[in-house]
């Protein structure tokens, strides 16, 4: 039974379709594994009974030949996606009592495709963090080495996939929150083009950067999952009214690749193992026939400061609704309206969230707006232009996902050092481009990831390249 949970999504779909095993079997196997590995703290909620019931319905559909594309596949959602009548906490005390009266588009789409929701995964509070340590529900442990961080903010989703606690998991990425934990846990994580997946019902951190995506065992699985999650949604004005290509076909199609390498950035990698591994990955792809081109991204070094103005600025407004008035945590010690606001927010938010609200509020204040926010927007445009230039001659761009492998829980206390975790992942968010992280090597006995950034709406291309790499290597296999 425990072998079922190790199968790839592709094989699970095959096995369910030809009735080699049932959804009931596979669902129960995952539920057992979740219980067994409770100490990893991957899940905030588990819907045990409901999952079992839904598995029976899925099996019926399969028998009646009415199976939908993901019929009976047990998955997990990051606890940032609202699900009707379910607790949706966003990893925060503020929402520890919030039962959503409506569902996110991401949940609805996968639910309609037949997937079974096992539960909701742990995350950094309001998706702000790179180690999963800011969660009100305690940090997730890295399944490969429990002393280490699974990364963040989608640490619960990445660890759950790695520990075989779901077939695949949804996640979100504002500055690297899918790719960095995927890199730390040795799994595949893709953040599609901004606007590819609807943000309706996905709790906002920084609206212009937030994008939902997938963490899966490999690129092929990610392609299938992404296919059923993507598409235009009129409830989200920033959602793109563009045709969703069949990623499942594209991932296996015969494609030629021209890979751009930002030479300066690679030369400046401080960690030798990370740099060597990166160069090794590129030569594997080159040997396989990919063309390699040097490119220039002259403004990429300003990504981090620009991001840490824009993201907190948007977050300071997005989190203003948590005021203790209509939902969420309300302080008991209240004697005035100001008390209600101040005490509810002081008690309901953790330290990192408060830090970012402060930074954002400051950056938008009268007299500072031009110096910070406006300047950051200008940098963002320059970075976009850099990518546009590069994509004139290459079909994807490669760089490491992170400058290091996973670190020990509790070892980084300086917020700026923590922010530097996102140095290679942020540019794709600022430019709104699709990017994938795939396991590509080992540093300090832990996995590290190769990041492939695609052109606007060209998820198929990076999925194809990632799949190619995974055919040539075995870093993505769980050992």
């Amino acid at each position: 039974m425990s072998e079922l949970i190790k199968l790839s999504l592709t094989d699970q779909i095959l096995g369910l379709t030809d009735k080699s095993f049932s959804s009931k079997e596979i669902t129960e196997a995952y539920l057992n594994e979740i219980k067994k590995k409770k100490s990893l703290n991957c899940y905030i909620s588990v819907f045990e009974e409901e999952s079992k019931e839904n598995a029976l319905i899925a099996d019926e559909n399969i028998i009646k030949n009415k199976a939908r594309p993901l019929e009976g596949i047990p998955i997990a959602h990051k606890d940032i996606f609202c699900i009707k009548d379910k607790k949706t906490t966003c990893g925060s005390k503020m929402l520890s009592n919030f039962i959503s009266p409506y569902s996110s588009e991401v949940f609805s789409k996968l639910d309609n495709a037949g997937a079974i929701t096992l539960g909701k995964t742990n995350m950094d509070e309001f998706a702000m963090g790179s180690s999963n340590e800011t969660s009100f529900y305690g940090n997730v442990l890295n399944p490969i080495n429990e002393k280490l961080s699974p990364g963040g903010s989608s640490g619960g989703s990445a660890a759950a996939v790695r520990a075989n606690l779901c077939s695949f998991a949804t996640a979100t990425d504002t500055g690297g929150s899918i790719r960095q934990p995927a890199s730390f846990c040795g799994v595949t994580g893709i953040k599609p083009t901004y606007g590819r997946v609807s943000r309706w019902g996905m709790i906002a951190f920084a609206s212009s950067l937030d994008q939902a995506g997938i963490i899966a065992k490999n690129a092929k699985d990610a392609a299938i999952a992404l296919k059923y999650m993507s598409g235009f949604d009129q409830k989200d004005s920033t959602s793109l009214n563009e045709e969703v290509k069949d990623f499942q076909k594209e991932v296996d199609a015969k494609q030629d690749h021209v890979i751009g390498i930002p030479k300066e950035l690679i030369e400046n990698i401080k960690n030798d193992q990370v740099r060597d591994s990166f160069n090794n990955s590129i030569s594997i792809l080159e040997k396989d026939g990919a063309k390699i081109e040097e490119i220039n991204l002259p403004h990429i070094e300003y990504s981090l400061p620009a991001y840490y103005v824009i993201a907190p600025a948007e977050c300071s407004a997005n989190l203003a609704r948590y005021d203790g008035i209509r939902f969420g945590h309300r302080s008991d010690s209240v004697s005035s309206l100001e008390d209600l606001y101040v005490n509810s927010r002081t008690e309901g938010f953790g330290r990192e969230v408060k830090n970012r609200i402060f930074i954002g509020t400051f950056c938008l204040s009268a007299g500072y707006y031009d110096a910070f926010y406006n300047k950051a927007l200008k940098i963002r445009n320059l970075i976009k232009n850099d990518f546009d230039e590069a994509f004139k001659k290459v079909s994807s761009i490669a760089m490491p996902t992170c400058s290091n492998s996973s670190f020990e829980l509790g070892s980084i206390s300086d917020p700026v050092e923590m922010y530097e975790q996102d140095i290679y992942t942020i540019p794709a968010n600022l430019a709104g481009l699709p990017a994938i992280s795939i396991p590509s090597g080992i540093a300090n006995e832990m996995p590290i990831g190769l990041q492939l950034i695609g052109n606007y709406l060209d998820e198929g291309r990076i999925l194809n390249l990632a799949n190619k790499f995974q055919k040539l290597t075995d870093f993505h296999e769980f050992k």
Partner: protein
Amino acid sequence: MSSNNWQPVIGLEVHVQLATKTKLFSSSPIAFGAEPNTQANEIDLGLPGVLPVLNKEAISHALKFGCAINAEISEKVIFARKNYFYPDLPKGYQISQLDDPIVGKGSIKIKLGEKSKIIGVTRAHLEEDAGKSIHDLYSNNSAIDLNRAGTCLLEIVSEPDLSSAEEAIEYLKKIHSIVTFLGISDGDMSQGSMRCDANVSVKKPNDHELGTRTELKNINSFKFVEKAIIFEIDRQIKELENGKEIIQETRLYDSKKNLTQSMRSKEEANDYRYFPEPDLIPIKISKDQINNVRKNLPELPEIMKERFMKSYGLSNENAELVTANKETASFFEDVLSYKVSPKIAVNWITGDLFALLNKNDTNILESEVSPKHIAEIIQNIEDQKISGPSAKKLLEIVWSKGGEIQELIQKEGLEQISNDDEIEKILDEVIFENQKQFEQLKSGKDRLQGFFVGQVMKKTSGSASPKVVNKLLKDKLSK
């Protein structure tokens, strides 16, 4: 102290609630007077994860207003977040516009007796309304009704071109008539469909610089706008003449005490930390779209008034009165559709009908008397079936009892007596009773003619035809 030494400078910010079917960013309906919180969905409540979707009808309403006042129209409409905390503001920010308001510079002509004056409009922008806080419903608790939260407002900002309370009222009336003629608002001040803030300062006539201004907030009737401005001008003059300075501040008008009171000064003023709304993409407005709106613009009061004067021969004053609002104008034209004299029709409407509306404290929409009623009354007078005084009586009967004109004339015995014999008999009676006066009339005291006609009318309760009475009297005198 002489107010002649001071010149008031007034600018108005008028909030017009647009008559859209649904709210500015959600599909909740808009209706005044619904049960609290029954017209607020997850978007209006500002739940985690919700996103705004712009209501296109609001854009088209705003464009109509812009075209009607010959304003510049922005090619790109950008929304911005205006951040502040208040319990009836669910998201902790209001979606409004800062740069690129949909309507730019335009102008509105107001009438001041015989003269007219052009008032500059700086801008008009779209924004969502807040909910309502109710503080007097429960002891120790406040209540919040979010039915109004998210309804569409057009904020129309004038240049400081107004120089008296009278001008301010004329300007407001003009806006009221424009928006009602365009059908973009019901303009009902008592239901909050038009609200007004006034910026007031005074200066010496020769000063080039404006004086320090105060802002009078949220005044909700024409009468109070007038009173608040008059009080504030007077207060500022007194302060200045006593050697004091005007403090730049927000003041609230207390209609019960008829005075303005300080609410907050500039130093305590909010920093709204505006920034572009990342959940909405900029809306492009094409030249075609603008031309289309311009082409289909309904007839505006100014033009309609001229048409009424030209084709119906109405006086300036009467034309002004029947074009004061859309409802009166269409009532007037409905009466004319029964082929009655426009000049007579306008007298009935602006005279007797307006008097009845005033007496019953209502407006023409609620009139118990229909255009058909008025037209038939006029026709009956012209056909000499009823007399003028009977007609007035008939109008009041229609108002209180309703019914068909022809039936009422018979039922109430209002038919005009035009039978010469019958009238002659009564006239003889009158002459007999007033022999002395008759002799005087005979000897040339012409003004007594009216006395005799009046007496006959009195005896017949107004149902005799004055024309016939006059004719018979003349016959008798010439005998």
